[in-house]
């Protein structure tokens, strides 16, 4: 049997894993499901593209690609700046909206507010860039043969490598550093964290920044592998939620593994059932986990 679909699943799963990490962190530290998270992916992708365009016109030539990849160091730099900007966008929305809802103790309405934010952010992208799909690069890539008849393009391999790097980084950050320790403390008990001396507001800011930045990287990866569209992030929202819940909501390793599980399950469905049912896989996984083990693989309680 051709195992190519597993490779495709891993690549999609890598993107999902980065996105789901942000979902799970927001959920753990702010205690609400952020329906606007998908939009951070889209904004990251568009910001990156716009920055690359700006840099290109400043230099007088489009950013060069570095063989064998279809993009070069230039776009990578733009992606980093876009990640910072997307984190900033998340912070801005928090300052204008979510923080005020928290201060009033109306956190329940935060879910609804995030739903409104997601619609507005997506529509704003449509107004700015139209719904026409765009691409970072028009170059065609030749897939390299790997083991067992599987093939992957250099870009796909690069996305996987970046994901592994970031996943390791985030896991170490959460598990081994002072800010990670504070995040875990706030996730468990914000008022106890405060009396121990943790600046909860600063931890929440760090959470938005990290979640937004990871989402932007996921968005650039998705744009690189597929295309850049205003609805690209929103379409990934359900898979990201599914990944976070499968892994156990609040758990970063869970979100990473959940992302890969959802990605591979989607690819399997595409291979054996049909591409049009891809989006149903997340829902099926979600329902299965809620039926069997609502706390997910690594979660403590639901």
């Amino acid at each position: 049997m051709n195992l190519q679909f597993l490779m495709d699943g891993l690549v999609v799963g890598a993107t999902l894993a980065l996105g789901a990490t942000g979902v799970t962190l927001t959920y753990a530290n702010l205690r609400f499901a952020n329906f606007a998270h998908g939009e951070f992916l889209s904004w990251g992708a568009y910001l990156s593209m716009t920055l690359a365009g700006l840099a290109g016109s400043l230099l007088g030539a489009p950013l060069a690609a570095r063989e064998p990849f279809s993009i070069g160091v230039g776009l990578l730099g733009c992606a980093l700046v876009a990640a910072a900007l997307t984190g900033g966008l998340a912070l801005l929305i928090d300052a204008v909206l979510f923080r005020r809802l928290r201060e009033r103790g109306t956190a329940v309405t935060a879910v609804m507010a995030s739903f409104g934010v997601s619609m507005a952010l997506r529509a704003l992208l449509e107004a700015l860039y139209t719904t026409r799909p765009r691409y970072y690069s028009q170059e065609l890539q030749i897939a390299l043969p790997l083991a067992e008849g599987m093939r992957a393009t250099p870009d796909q391999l690069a996305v996987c490598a970046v994901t592994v790097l970031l996943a390791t980084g985030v896991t170490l950050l959460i598990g081994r550093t002072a800010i990670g320790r504070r995040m875990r403390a706030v996730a468990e008990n914000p008022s106890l964290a405060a009396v121990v001396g943790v600046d909860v507001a600063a931890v929440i800011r760090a959470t938005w920044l990290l979640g937004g930045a990871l989402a932007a990287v996921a968005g650039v990866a998705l744009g690189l592998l597929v295309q850049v569209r205003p609805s690209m992030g929103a379409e990934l929202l359900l898979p990201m939620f599914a990944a976070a819940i499968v892994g156990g909501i609040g758990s970063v390793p869970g979100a990473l593994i959940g992302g890969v599980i959802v990605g591979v399950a989607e690819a399997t469905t595409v291979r054996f059932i049909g591409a049009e049912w891809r989006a149903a896989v997340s829902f099926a996984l979600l329902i299965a986990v809620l039926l069997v083990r609502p706390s997910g693989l690594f979660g403590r309680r639901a």
Partner: protein
Amino acid sequence: MSGAWTGWLAYAASFGVMVLIQGVACLGLNLQWGQTGLFNVGVAGFVAVGAYTSALLTSAAVDGRLGGYELPLVIGVVAAMAAGGLVSAAVGALTLRLRSDYLAIATFGIAVVVDLVARNAAGLTGGTLGISFIPRPFEALAERPLTFALATFALVAAVTLLAYLLLERLVASPWGRVLRAIREDERAAASLGKSAASYRLQAFTVGGALMGLAGALQAHTLGFISPENFAAAVTFQVWAMLVVGGTGNNRGVLLGALLVSALWSATGLATAAAFPPEEQARAAALRIVAIGVLLSATILWRPRGLLGERTAVSRHLDD
């Protein structure tokens, strides 16, 4: 009566039908969120379930598609409510015992899956083309547009009034008071134990049935449905109606439906006049941004909407 007048009146009647249909869906959402505190992000999905159910049962047979039983409209509408209620009950049974966000995520998932089925299961739903020639209640009057529009409006208004009166009675009943008690006070909910979960499930199911009803009304007034009628923007609009009109207040819901629909149509006319044809898509997106900002601003500055809940003081909506 002059031609301009009849044209205007017919437009007003069809606008009224649209307002009332979304109002019915919004009444369902108000029972779920406003009265019981249950979060539904998949309103469009539940409306679609109702619309397709009734359309399949009442329309004429078409080659290569299931359904076409030409059943009476009343049966179609009742079945639509049952379908909306059933799907709600299933989602509720699965998620209501978990944290509230799981319900939100699951309802969001339902809407995605319903949309997927509507688009891809052509043998059931007609695919992206949808279902057309759905029987309309006053088909015989179709040659006289004004009479047709007014009769349709009167029927939809009667159904909406019925739903409104029933809900008002429910809200005032002991059942409604228990719902609010559960919403207001987690401890009260906990002391009710299992029966609190059952009350929540009942409210969620009845709300879903109302959304199914709204779907059936839409199918039988438009005469055709397609996946485009049930985009996520519908959920968004119904939410905006509830929040703007006044969460927890059924009259506020209907007021919100009118205001948001009016805003939607007015911005539509304005953008159509102000932007050249090639920029229309962008302008339409800006309308959604406007409603998103309106929704967020209302949550921030007027959390109870225009007409807040009259009776109980709602803790989760309080400043």
